């Protein structure tokens, strides 16, 4: 009962957030000068042509009306039609999103699998050389622009060593994408680098905090060894706050994908967004942002639910 109430409340909150997102993006797109018509029809278009385009697309109506109109089509599951690609936005995103998900999920998995043990190890070796070295490396990984990192990786591993190709898999289906795992290595590593940096820092902080908790002293007083305490108690307690951060990291992952897809020419949603931005393709831009914000909101929701499962205190509202 309590769980159900909680889920309903969180779902309502999520809906409000998504509504605000659509308003923000909608206003942003329409408030800026030089509307879409000029972008699509080209600089030679006459005022008449522009007016005709605006009328055809409903762009001459007042903003609130346009917004409501947009919301209504949205409720029918329709994200509109691309101005330039002559295809439904839902179809476009439907083709591209799975590829982007492959990239982001793989990056996240690789990132977490590296970050969690690294962070714990740092906490145990606090203020020893290993801790300093990993901390410095985390800072460097965090501070490197993704496109610069990707470039360096290509220069080293493609141009010099010839280990991996410089292009991501180009296949149309996921099966084709996975058929070329070597081509996935550089994009995934590029996407995972800053994640390793951020989450190893989180894990280090959480582990340090837990190591100083009273229950660790109780376990020691009961004769438990350091290793047992670390893996049986501290690990789980430290992981919970880190999981909670994961939801908020979804937009960062997509932001990374935007650059990585452009850099490695990987035809995912990021690349779609990139070309839509070049041609002021509003429906596509709005559709992509909407999908990403829904993904983020769902991500945070999932992180909350997972946390409730892992940490029984959260359920009781005491944590």
């Amino acid at each position, binding site marked *: 009962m309590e769980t159900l109430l909680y889920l309903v409340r969180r779902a309502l909150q999520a809906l409000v957030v998504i509504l605000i997102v659509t308003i923000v993006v909608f206003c942003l797109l329409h408030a800026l000068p030089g509307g879409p018509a000029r972008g699509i029809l080209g600089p030679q278009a006459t005022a008449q042509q522009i007016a005709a385009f605006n009328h055809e697309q409903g762009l001459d109506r007042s903003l609130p009306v346009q917004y409501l109109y947009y919301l209504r089509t949205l409720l029918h599951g329709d994200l509109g039609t691309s101005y330039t690609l002559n295809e439904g936005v839902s179809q476009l995103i439907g083709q591209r999103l799975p590829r982007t998900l492959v990239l982001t999920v793989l990056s996240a998995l690789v990132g977490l699998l590296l970050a969690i043990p690294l962070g714990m190890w740092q906490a145990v070796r606090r203020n020893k050389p290993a801790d300093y070295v990993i901390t410095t490396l985390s800072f460097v990984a965090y501070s490197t622009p993704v496109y610069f990192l990707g470039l360096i990786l290509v220069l080293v591993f493609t141009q010099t060593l010839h280990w991996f190709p410089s292009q991501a898999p180009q296949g149309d289906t996921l099966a084709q994408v996975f058929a070329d795992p070597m081509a996935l290595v550089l994009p995934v590593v590029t996407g995972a680098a800053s994640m390793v940096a951020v989450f190893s820092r989180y894990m280090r902080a959480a582990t340090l905090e837990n190591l100083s908790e009273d229950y660790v002293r109780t376990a020691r007083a009961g004769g438990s060894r350091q290793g047992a305490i670390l893996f049986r108690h501290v690990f789980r307690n430290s992981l919970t706050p880190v999981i909670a951060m994961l939801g908020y990291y979804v937009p960062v992952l997509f932001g990374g994908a935007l*650059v990585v897809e452009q850099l490695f020419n990987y035809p995912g949603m990021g690349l779609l967004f990139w070309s839509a931005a070049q041609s002021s393709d509003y429906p596509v831009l709005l559709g992509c942002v909407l999908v990403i914000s829904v993904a983020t909101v769902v991500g945070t929701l999932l992180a909350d639910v997972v946390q409730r499962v892992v940490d029984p205190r959260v359920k009781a509202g005491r944590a």
Partner: protein
Amino acid sequence: MSAVLQSTTPTAEPVANYRLSLRRFTRNRLAVAGLVVVVLFLLFCFVGPLLYSTDQTHTDLHQVNLGPGGAHWLGTDAVGHDEVGRLMFGGQVSLLVGLAAGVLATVIGTLWGATAGYAGGWADAVMMRVVDAGIAIPALFILLVVSAITTPDTLGLILVLGLVSWLVPSRLVRAETLTLKSRDYVLTLRATGGTHGRAIARHILPNSVSTIVVAATFQVADAILLVAYVSYLGLGVQPPKTDWGGMLSAGLTAAYSGRWWLIVPPGLAIILVVCAFNAIGDGLRDAFDVRGRG
């Protein structure tokens, strides 16, 4: 009953707080190194041009794509600008925009977060949903949309960057405000007829200063990093002006043909400065003993 406090009553701390914080900060070697790096870069970019003067406005087609060495220590770019001079010149923009945008983001975030946290109730709920919505839209996507529509000048760039990155500090400051407003001294003030204005101005803001300073440091680091993306996304400052990110994206193709000196120096400059601000932020956070980004 919290008679627990019996054995946790703190003993009088003889050393003034800021002295203790300073000592803790100076003992953090990474943080001190970060401070040194930042100071060196500021000197390099703003004092350097006085000692090492180069022409960064006119192209010199006799001197294009020279390798490092000779008169040009780090070579020249595709239109003949000296790379060392260009690093200084571009660094001015990167550092100025980064610092200004980071501070702007912190100011917006502080006002928003403090208002939400102190007001509580419905206002807080609505304001924090707006923050959630902001966080759900990746900054890079917004910047790309903006770049498709307009090309801002330096001031516009600062505004845009500030407006996309105030969300994290607003959450931190809100959390801090929530804690502070239930402190006994604030309750005492309210119970004895003090105004909300007094509670905020005399107690809550002054006590949030360390949290805000730490947030600002990380914010500047992020902003400098974001400036580096801006040119890549097509939003950068227009030639002949440039910034480190602009140098990087301009040199991308050159790098494939072996002209590494066009991308490695600006790349390293960005990494070093961003690392330095992160290390300083880390050191300050530990020194002030405030919670925040891991």
